[in-house]
């Protein structure tokens, strides 16, 4: 283990191309130039909160904040937003209005109805929308083919929002925080990042929508909670319903459970009401309402629903269907909506059960999504969670606000002195024998990340192992920052290096570190959670890294020395134990060999003493000498143990025991941390 010179099996660090004259590390910060984007299924919007200011949404030229997440590919021009949405009826296949549902999905994932012509390219398996002119659609026009990916469609939306922000900031956007549903898998998150890349937008990080909503309400900082608490985020958007249970601990949110219905939302309210209005208007002579009549009814239904959040009654006109001056009351509306809204209750209860949380334990319920303005929905939420929901912030904008706050922090603004992380600023590791640090998660690894490593015992008498979690770049634990210390007790008594204790580090997207230690034979386990960088500023991180460079040489000397001592100590202990147990048996240890071993032991004791840069070489030499001289004795002892242990066992049993032994040896040799699947 302790080599003559430092050579790592590790082939080295990963490098990025640097700007000439750039600082040694870290992305350039541009305080105040981060933006928050809520990239929604139905609507998207952008907000900013520069230099610690309160978040605000950015409007288009008509003063509208919400941009319909609709992109049309008509007349060779790409249009985004309201204009595109208006063309949906005439060209349903060429106006893409829910690209988010296709992001990062394969053909087999698309189990819902949609009006698009989908293509899957065999080699890449990426879905594409064919937005060319459909030859069969209109006589006299020839077909054409133009295919766009869901990422490209989303990129168009992001471009419009980024342009809005640049017009407001009068300078380029440095980076964006984009929100994604908590349940988005890696492929969907990657697709979202790709969309931003296509749009030329730097992504600071993706943020879970419920976490963004909680940040907007400042639930992480509220005084009464002390940075702790459980929250429910109820998000009823246009086409989707999501419920998330969050746990706040040490100022960090963790998603405990999510649930919902990907085909339930305000659009269902609109459709139910539109259907009702068309029934009132009566069937046309053809027997079926045409697309334009249905679209008219939908628009009128949406307007009526919105008006009825405040008003008790509204008047509805459907000129195309011959309905004029129809009076609609809130009671009537709610009777139509109730069966739909009630479908959100089941997922809420399920999420609470999944999280193991009772409604009374919740410190707050946050409303997200325009459909939560419907009074009926608020009453249902209050009844389900047994408390009035938080609704001070516009539910259409709350997610973008949270993203804007986080983007401002990530842009480098001094905002409550918090450092938010998307990479690990300092390595995380464990103290091992001799006070040496074994790094498990290296500096600058992107989070979330997990890694584990198997450790072993030092002596037979060891029945507990202290797990000391440290942070820093220095080689000795004493020079690093101590994060947590716990003891794994009840280890089985095993010969040195036979126990296997697996230590795993999991750093989640919110930079919460979970360290678990498990003894693999008995399965006993201990876990601790820490927030590694809580309260550490950028400047402090820089200082710690620089310090490690300054002390590099002495650190390596100290590490070499400590490692050499540990190794020698281990061999000395093993030899002494063997001498004590079987050293008196003449057939195992002839007297002259015993003398030689004792001389080597004495030399080893002497080698342990001195300090200095090159001392580790002398220690290693003493260890090698001791190993060599005691090797025949160790072999005879092993053979004897095998003979007694193996008598009466079948060949297969012996072979399997030997195979186990080999596997163990391999794992012990495998000293590199391994990534977790």
């Amino acid at each position, binding site marked *: 283990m302790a080599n003559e010179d430092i050579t790592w099996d590790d082939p*080295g*660090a*990963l*490098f990025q*191309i*640097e700007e*000439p004259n750039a600082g040694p590390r870290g992305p350039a910060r541009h305080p105040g130039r981060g933006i928050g984007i809520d990239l929604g299924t139905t609507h998207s919007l952008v907000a900013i909160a520069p230099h610690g200011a309160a978040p605000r949404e950015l409007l288009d030229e008509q003063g509208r904040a919400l941009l319909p997440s609709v992109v049309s590919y008509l007349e060779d021009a790409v249009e985004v937003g309201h204009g595109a949405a208006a063309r949906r009826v005439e060209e349903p296949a060429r106006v893409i209005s829910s690209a988010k549902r296709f992001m990062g999905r394969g053909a087999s994932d698309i189990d819902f109805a949609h009006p698009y012509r989908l293509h899957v390219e065999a080699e890449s398996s990426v879905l594409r929308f064919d937005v060319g002119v459909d030859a069969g659609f209109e006589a006299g026009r020839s077909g054409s083919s133009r295919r766009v990916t869901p990422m490209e469609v989303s990129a168009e939306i992001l471009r419009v929002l980024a342009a809005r922000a640049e017009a407001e900031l009068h300078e380029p956007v440095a980076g964006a925080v984009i929100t994604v549903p908590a349940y988005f898998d890696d492929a969907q998150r990657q697709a979202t990042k790709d969309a931003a890349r296509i749009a030329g937008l730097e992504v600071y990080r993706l943020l879970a929508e419920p976490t963004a909503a909680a940040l907007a309400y400042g639930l992480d900082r509220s005084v009464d909670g002390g940075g702790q608490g459980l929250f429910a985020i109820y998000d009823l958007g246009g086409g989707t319903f999501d419920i998330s249970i969050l746990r706040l601990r040490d100022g960090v949110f963790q998603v405990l459970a999510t649930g919902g219905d990907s085909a339930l939302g305000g659009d269902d309210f609109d459709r139910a009401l539109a259907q009702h209005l068309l029934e009132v208007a009566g069937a046309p002579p053809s027997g079926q309402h045409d697309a334009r009549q249905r679209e008219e009814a939908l628009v009128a239904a949406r307007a009526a629903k919105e008006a009825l959040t405040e008003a008790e009654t509204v008047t509805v006109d459907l000129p195309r269907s011959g309905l004029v001056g129809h009076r609609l009351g809130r009671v009537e509306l709610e009777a139509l909506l109730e069966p739909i809204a009630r479908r959100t209750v089941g997922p809420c209860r399920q999420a609470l059960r999944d999280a193991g949380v009772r409604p009374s334990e919740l410190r707050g319920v946050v409303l997200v999504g325009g459909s939560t303005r419907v009074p009926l929905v608020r009453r249902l939420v209050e009844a389900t969670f047994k408390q009035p929901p938080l609704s001070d912030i516009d539910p259409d904008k709350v997610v973008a606000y949270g993203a804007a706050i986080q983007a401002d922090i990530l842009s480098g603004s001094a905002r409550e002195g918090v450092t938010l992380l998307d990479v690990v600023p300092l390595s995380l590791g464990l103290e091992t024998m001799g006070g040496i640090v074994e790094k498990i998660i290296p500096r600058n690894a992107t989070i979330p990340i997990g890694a584990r490593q198997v450790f072993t015992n030092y002596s037979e008498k060891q029945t507990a192992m202290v797990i000391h979690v440290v942070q820093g770049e220095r080689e000795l634990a004493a020079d690093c920052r101590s994060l947590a210390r716990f003891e794994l007790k009840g280890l089985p008594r095993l010969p040195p290096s036979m126990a296997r204790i697996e230590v795993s580090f999991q750093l989640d997207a919110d930079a919460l570190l979970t360290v678990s230690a498990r003894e693999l034979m008995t399965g006993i386990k201990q876990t601790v959670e820490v927030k590694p960088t809580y309260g550490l500023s950028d400047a402090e991180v820089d200082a710690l890294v620089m310090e490690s460079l300054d002390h590099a040489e002495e650190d390596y000397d100290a590490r070499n020395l400590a490692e050499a001592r540990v190794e020698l100590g281990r061999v000395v202990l093993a030899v002494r134990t063997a001498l004590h147990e079987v050293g008196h048996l003449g057939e195992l240890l002839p007297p002259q060999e015993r003398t030689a071993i004792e001389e080597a032991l004495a030399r080893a004791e002497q080698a342990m003493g001195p300090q200095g840069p090159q001392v580790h070489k002398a220690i290693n030499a003493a260890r090698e000498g001791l190993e060599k001289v005691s090797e025949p004795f160790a072999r005879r002892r092993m053979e004897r143990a095998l003979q007694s242990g193996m008598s009466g066992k079948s060949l297969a049993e012996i072979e399997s025991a030997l195979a186990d032994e080999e596997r163990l040896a391999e794992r012990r040799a495998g000293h590199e941390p391994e990534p977790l699947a």
Partner: protein
Amino acid sequence: MLAEITNDPGSDGSGAPASEPPASPLRVTVRAAKVMRAQLDKRGTPQAAIRFGIRGGGCTGYSYMFQFEDGPPRAKDTVVEAAHGVRVYLDPKSLVLVRGTEIDFETGIRGHGFRFANPNVDGSCGCGESVSF
């Protein structure tokens, strides 16, 4: 002996660098070249080059230099043409220490980045950012 060296910035390096003989100063995998190309384009300087070499500093005395290069190559620079029209400049001093290095691009638990396999190195420090020869 330097293979495939040209100072013509306009030439398209369409040849596969993977097939260069081992004596070549530097090998850039097609994957790494593709990422370099993408980063050059994203930076808005598709004509710029990459400078690769060794500079002093770091825990064991040397560390890699790996950066964008907007200017033309210096007189004694070696220019390696990689795939996708990517050009990498090496200064003569660095060349001694990096000859035969393979630059690859990797995605893994440590995130994404370029990996240098340098046959001249006999030790690297824990952080991997500095090397000894």
